[in-house]
């Protein structure tokens, strides 16, 4: 148990109620992870269209990206719902909205986002109207930004959990979307026969590598400098330092989500190897889940009383 016992006083809690345990479990990890992919692929498609519009394979991404986004946003919504203790009262959010809550704002934005990506799928598969798709993609991409970020606002409003700070969480959420979006596009291209041009896939590789580097740097900075500013942050980070309860899991996440992708992206660019890139993408997607999970759980282990 983390503590900052003062040796001279020998203060020991001899009676208190048990800790409430993990209030937001892995369902919330799934929520954040799936949302990153669901919005990340939209960012990537928008970027690819602007930067590599001449690549015929990019034009074929319209429907698959809409479907991938629908699938992962559905997973996100499903786990959000499943995490509620009263899921059948979900409608209260829309009928008794409290506008200071990011949960309210997020639920409305995520619902609108789901509507937009469904229309994108309709435009690309049923109506086959690429022009309408591309126009709507701009607005979908714009909405994807707050949908990606609202969870950061929610975490930052948890006054009890000092580890989750604004704007750090905002940047981490955006980086997670870029990382997982690029990784998902790379994996999709690999699964469908590597049709994208080298320049297009190289752009995805660079985004993946840079997002991994930026995210890893931020986590390390928080590990080193966070404890210097706040007692609670210091206590929470003990869980991922040394022999902390979540130290192994934390480093597994960092290695898979960031260190391995960074190294493999670099090697793949130098060696022009798509296989290494596929491995980097897979590692990033898997590792991101672990990273998100550890960061979600550790502040909940701290006694509040």
């Amino acid at each position, binding site marked *: 148990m983390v503590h900052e016992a003062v040796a001279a006083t020998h203060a020991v809690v001899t009676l*208190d109620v048990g800790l409430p345990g993990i209030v937001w479990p892995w369902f919330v990890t799934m929520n954040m992870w799936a949302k990153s992919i669901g919005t990340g692929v939209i960012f990537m498609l928008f970027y690819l269209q602007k930067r590599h519009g001449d690549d015929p394979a990019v034009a074929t991404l319209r429907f698959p990206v809409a479907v991938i986004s629908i699938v992962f946003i559905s997973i996100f919504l499903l786990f959000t719902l499943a995490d509620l203790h*009263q899921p059948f009262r*979900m409608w209260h959010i829309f009928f008794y909205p409290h506008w200071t809550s990011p949960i309210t704002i997020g639920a409305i934005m995520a619902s609108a986002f789901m509507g937009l990506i469904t229309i994108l799928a309709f435009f690309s598969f049923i109506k086959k109207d690429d022009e309408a798709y591309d126009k709507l993609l701009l607005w979908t991409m714009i909405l994807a930004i707050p949908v990606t970020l609202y969870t950061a606002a929610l975490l930052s409003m*948890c006054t009890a959990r000092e580890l989750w700070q604004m704007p750090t969480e905002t940047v981490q959420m955006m980086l997670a979307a870029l990382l997982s979006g690029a990784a998902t596009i790379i994996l999709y291209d690999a699964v469908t026969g590597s049709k994208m041009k080298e320049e297009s896939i190289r752009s995805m590789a660079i985004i993946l590598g840079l997002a991994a580097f930026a995210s890893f740097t931020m986590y390390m900075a928080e590990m080193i400098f966070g404890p210097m500013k706040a007692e609670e942050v210091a206590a929470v980070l003990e869980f991922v330092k040394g022999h902390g309860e979540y130290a192994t899991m934390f480093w597994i996440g960092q290695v898979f989500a960031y260190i391995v992708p960074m190294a493999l992206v670099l090697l793949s660019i130098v060696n022009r190897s798509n296989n290494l890139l596929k491995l980097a993408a897979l590692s990033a997607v898997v590792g991101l889940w672990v990273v998100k999970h550890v960061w979600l759980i550790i502040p909940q282990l701290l006694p509040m*009383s």
Partner: protein
Amino acid sequence: MKLGFLVDLHLCMGCKGCQIACKVENEVPLSTWRLRVKYVDVGTFPETKRTFTPLRCNHCENAPCERICPVSALHYIENGIVNIDKERCIGCAGCVMACPYGAIYIDPETQTADKCTYCAHRIASSMMPACVVACPVEANIFGDIEDPTSNISKYIMQHNGDVQVRKPEKGTNPHHYYVGGGNVTLNPLASFRVEGHQLFNKLTTKMPVGGHH
């Protein structure tokens, strides 16, 4: 009117009368507490003492739980109490995550958030909260903190300099005060916790009756 609570820790003797009265009055289910008394032992034998700290919702003026609740299930009432509408709560647990005092829990029977309401239903009938009535040493002082003639206001004035709140750095501006508190009693990180070990059970591991089979 802004209702507030003050606990004089010099007077509290850890009898847990308030804790039980609260549980009975509000029909708080097993394994959950709206109010509980924390014991912290300080010092080395024979120079030891035991401190008692009743902990309940702080009814903050700037309540993180009220702000984060997506459906206004947690809401202010005119007298400053942060009340809860359990029929409206969706059980997202945002409030549990937001409260820096660990005062909110998910009721296992209703699957909704629950916490101390300063016995809002009793106050509406001009009665004192159950814990105040139960306290044998009048360590719990309850009243209007905006009325300078109220008992709580007088007590705060008399003990000026020794009145504290929990975690003031959070900016929540609690309406729950302590006289005679200190780092050990009010700061959860200032004392050691042996996981699973409690005064009345001394269990450090959950072993089956009769030990290992």
